[in-house]
């Protein structure tokens, strides 16, 4: 899927660029974006090391165990394929906790850790599991208790009641969360989960 989308994105850029006469800008964007991607990843690395360090401390103090035990009913229902005491469950729980509290910087490292741990459980390495897809779809819904950045932005530009947005925000986030759970449980039935070699062979003969 991503192979096709990626190629399509670049082909469209070139075709549109020719028509709009923006080819020089497109070419400039190639090197600029590559540099930007690298600096972004580098910036992420510092924050990531910091939060992964904190996570290890929390793990050894038994805090992650407490958190996953508290969230166990929810997590077992959302991710039935992950053993309750596996480190992946701890990382997922930490990611969700950080997201809900609005700590986006902390949520990403926990999420990446969760994906790496989920891959260790994967019987067909290289092929996304149902758990991974559900986890990503949930991530897309961006559930937070208080959208702090949004409130701060509104307040800074003269809103009288910026906290008005909490209610519609939480309600629409909940809609997206429900959609994420329902959609991924439906779609996983139609996208076959097969070993990588078989998927690649099928892809080659198509």
């Amino acid at each position: 899927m991503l192979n096709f989308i990626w190629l399509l994105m670049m082909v469209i850029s070139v075709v549109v660029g020719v028509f709009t006469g923006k080819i020089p800008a497109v070419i400039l964007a190639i090197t600029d974006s590559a540099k930007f991607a690298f600096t972004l990843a580098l910036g992420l690395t510092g924050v990531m090391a910091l939060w992964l360090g904190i996570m290890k401390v929390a793990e050894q103090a038994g805090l992650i165990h407490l958190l996953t035990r508290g969230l166990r009913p929810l997590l077992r229902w959302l991710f039935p394929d992950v053993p309750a005491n596996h480190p992946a469950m701890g990382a997922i729980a930490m990611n969700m906790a950080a997201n809900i509290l609005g700590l986006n910087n902390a949520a990403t490292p926990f999420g990446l850790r969760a994906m790496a741990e989920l891959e260790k459980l994967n019987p067909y390495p290289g092929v996304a599991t149902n758990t991974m897809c559900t986890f990503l779809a949930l991530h897309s819904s961006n559930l937070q208790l208080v959208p702090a950045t949004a409130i701060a932005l509104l307040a800074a530009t003269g809103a009288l009641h910026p906290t008005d947005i909490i209610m519609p925000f939480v309600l629409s986030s909940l809609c997206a969360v429900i959609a994420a759970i329902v959609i991924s449980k439906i779609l996983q039935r139609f996208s076959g989960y097969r070993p990588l070699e078989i998927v690649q062979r099928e892809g080659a003969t198509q």
Partner: protein
Amino acid sequence: MTIAAISEQLGNVLILLFLVGIPFYAYCRKVPVYDAFVEGAKEGFPTFIRVVPFMIAMLVAIGMLRASGAFDLLNQALLPFLTKLGIPPEIVPIAILRPFSASAANAVVADLLHTQGGNSFISHLAVIVASTTDTTFYLIALYFGAANIQKNRHAVPASIIVDIVGILSAVWITQLLLQ
């Protein structure tokens, strides 16, 4: 104290609670906190090496799309259809850009806040739409990059549908409650 200051303070307190509170609790439970931290932080750099090629691939393609003006075309093409669904024309570019690029969508939001003021309904709607969705394509590249996944099955369609549901419910619910 203003609300902006309060929400900022709240964020600061939360971060400090995690960053200092967790090691404090751990130290009381006799965990060698410094050693544990360093051991965990070591995983940061390997993750960087795994993730960087995926991020370059995705962000270069998105950067090219942005520079070519394709998003403006998409905006014009989808405008009649999306306004029929109840999305105000000012919000359409945010809805289109948000799954690809947070910075591009935030630029549109900042412009709206500047021209319409924070007290307007459109500004409220803009920040809600921008916060209910995530940078889906970037997230997929980043997260599957970290796990070295080559076949992502239904992750892309599922996440895109979630984005659409998020945007539409944000628009409809906000209009119902705030307008």
